């Protein structure tokens, strides 16, 4: 019998700390699969965020740097400029990329840095206990919007991918989801594209993943996947943005 699905070499054989049904585990694995498939494990450098994925480097089997909250793209910019032969990517949540790090995000994109960005949008702050994220939906209840987010006053869900797509320095932006296995495979194809763009020197590429947070959405893992499909996508439609 032939193995047709197994752990990629770029993912360490270690249990992760994520809650049951969390999308981070899927995203980590897809990146590792692509690193293996493109043969870059020995030259890839990942930059981990602050948020639930802060110790992503404990799970990936390649070189990684920590970055201060929101600063992953500043750190990655310098690494890539100095080591253009290495493949450098950042892995960032919605708070990291689109709230505290908006400045670093927009300017790295605007400079057209030849980087790959994996953006996990789960519409919530998971690590700190379920507070409002920049991408929290209007009406969504969080620890800091107990009556639901209101656009005026709390702000509307920030469509950072659409904003970035307007910049001439940006090469590729696509929004994907983990709602079912077919969509996970589509997400993988998009992430692979974002890595291949860098390998070919084509510039800033970002993949936004609508990723489930069952714990702070207060749902079962299955219901959380369905919520990304039935509710989140009304605000954040899937597809290639640029």
């Amino acid at each position, binding site marked *: *019998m*032939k*193995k*047709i*699905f*197994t*752990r990629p070499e770029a*993912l360490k054989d270690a*249990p*992760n700390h*994520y*809650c*049951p*049904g*969390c*999308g*981070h*585990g*899927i995203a980590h*694995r897809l990146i590792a699969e692509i690193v293996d498939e493109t043969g870059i494990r020995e030259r890839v450098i990942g930059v981990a965020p602050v948020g639930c994925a802060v110790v992503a480097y404990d799970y990936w089997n390649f070189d990684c740097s920590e970055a201060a909250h929101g600063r992953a793209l500043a750190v990655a910019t310098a690494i890539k400029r100095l080591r253009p032969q290495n493949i450098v990517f950042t892995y960032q949540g919605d708070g990291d990329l689109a709230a505290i790090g908006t400045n670093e995000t927009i300017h790295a994109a605007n400079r057209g840095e030849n980087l790959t960005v994996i953006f996990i949008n789960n519409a919530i702050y998971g690590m700190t206990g379920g507070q409002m994220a920049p991408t929290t939906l209007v009406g969504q209840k969080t620890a800091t919007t107990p009556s639901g987010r209101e656009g005026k006053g709390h702000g509307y869900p920030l469509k950072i991918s659409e904003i970035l797509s307007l910049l001439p320095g940006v090469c590729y932006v696509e929004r994907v989801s*983990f709602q*079912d*296995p077919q969509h*996970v*495979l589509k997400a993988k194809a998009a992430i692979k594209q974002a890595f291949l763009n860098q390998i070919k020197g084509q510039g800033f590429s970002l993949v936004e993943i609508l990723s489930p947070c*069952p714990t702070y959405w207060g749902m*079962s*893992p*299955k219901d959380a*996947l369905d919520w990304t499909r039935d509710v989140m996508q009304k605000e954040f439609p899937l597809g290639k943005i640029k």
Partner: protein
Amino acid sequence: MAKVIINRERCKGCFLCVSVCPKRLIKKGSKLNKRGSNFVEIDPAGVCVGCARCAIICPDCCIEVYK
């Protein structure tokens, strides 16, 4: 026939694999693993088609598929 192997100790019991198996061969098990999760089990009598949908959706990389 294909075969699915589940790493019981790694399983957190999110049951996403249960929801995506086209043959409904994966079920919530009756036992707990060391981490206290109700791990999933595969029906040994069922005919697995090796589609790997369970492995693709598994957030903990605890499913291997052979064909």
